[in-house]
């Protein structure tokens, strides 16, 4: 029973989240803290903070955390499946429909303009992330190196992620951080 209500609650969170990230906090707060009492606001913030700095989609990470707390490993898995379930249904429907309409000129025009909007949205989220990520010279050098190398060379992002995690540790040990 507990597993079923975990699944349903997180499916609800999945349906009500547009865009993920911070947009999810008020919805999680209402469903998980107020309605179900599965976690306190402070715990939720902790999960969220860790979910943000571990690999993967933040919404998924947070769901796994709360699910685990409520129902152990099975709970973690069920809550995570719940949060992705609406995406699976909705996106599959939309993708199926769009494939059939993709050749209509009006649809093509609409998407050419929407692509412009996507560029602006990416630009905005880069600026927002930049503020939290690049606070000193060491971080700026890492940013520039990764940016230039990944624009001009065909290198897998995995390589950058591994090298930068190692550089972060080395730079911190060397005392470069914060300068």
């Amino acid at each position, binding site marked *: 029973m507990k597993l079923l209500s975990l699944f349903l609650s997180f499916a609800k969170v999945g349906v009500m989240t547009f865009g993920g990230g911070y947009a999810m906090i008020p919805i999680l707060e209402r469903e998980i803290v107020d309605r179900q009492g599965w976690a306190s606001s402070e715990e939720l913030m902790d999960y969220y903070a860790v979910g943000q700095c571990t690999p993967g989609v933040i919404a998924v990470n947070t769901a796994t955390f709360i699910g685990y707390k409520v129902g152990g490993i099975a709970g973690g898995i069920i809550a*995570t499946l719940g949060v992705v379930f609406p995406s699976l249904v909705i996106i599959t429907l939309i993708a199926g429909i769009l494939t059939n309409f993709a050749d209509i000129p009006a649809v093509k025009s609409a998407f050419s303009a929407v692509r412009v909007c996507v560029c602006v949205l990416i630009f905005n989220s880069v600026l927002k992330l930049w503020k939290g990520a690049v606070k000193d010279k060491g971080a700026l050098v890492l*940013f520039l190196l990764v940016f230039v190398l990944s624009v001009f060379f065909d290198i897998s992002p995995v390589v950058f992620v591994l090298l930068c995690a190692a550089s972060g540790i080395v730079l911190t040990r060397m005392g470069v*951080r914060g300068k």
Partner: protein
Amino acid sequence: MILLRLFWEFFKTGLFAVGGGMATLPFLYDMSTRTGWFTQAKLADMIAVSESTPGPIGVNMATYVGFETAGIPGAVTATLGLICPSIIIILIIARVLKQFRENKTVDAAFYGLRPCSVALIAAAGMLVAKITFLNPEALTTGNGIAGYAGLFRWKAIALAAVLLVATRRIKPLKKLHPIVFIAASAVIGILFSF
């Protein structure tokens, strides 16, 4: 076989994309160039749909790519691939949450990971911008100065300028959900035949 590859590609994305939904973008871009499962223009469309539908962006994009590549089984496989590393990692961390948050080495690694993540997203964004704002064919037609003017998609540049001002400078508009700007852009695209 394609399902196995889809699972593996998205497992890698879930394992290495740090910092939320948009962080999956560089991995999807890399996937498009290596596998040819979808074009880069298609990727931009998928971002738009993922931003304007319910659900976390990263999950939506995985489902979309999976569906485009191998139908409904593909959508399910890609999504499961993406969330698998999260489940494993979080279940491990959940037991040692406090130590993890206070661990100096973890913190130091993230000092390096954060700028890396922003740079990767910025670089992938640049490549989406290239196909959105430029007409590379214009250079090969040899029209001289006119050819160079044709290199830029002027309508797209004008719309980007308007959107930048609207999303960053005008207070009442700044707070609106991205879906509003995406919908407005779609209407403008149809009206001005982009």
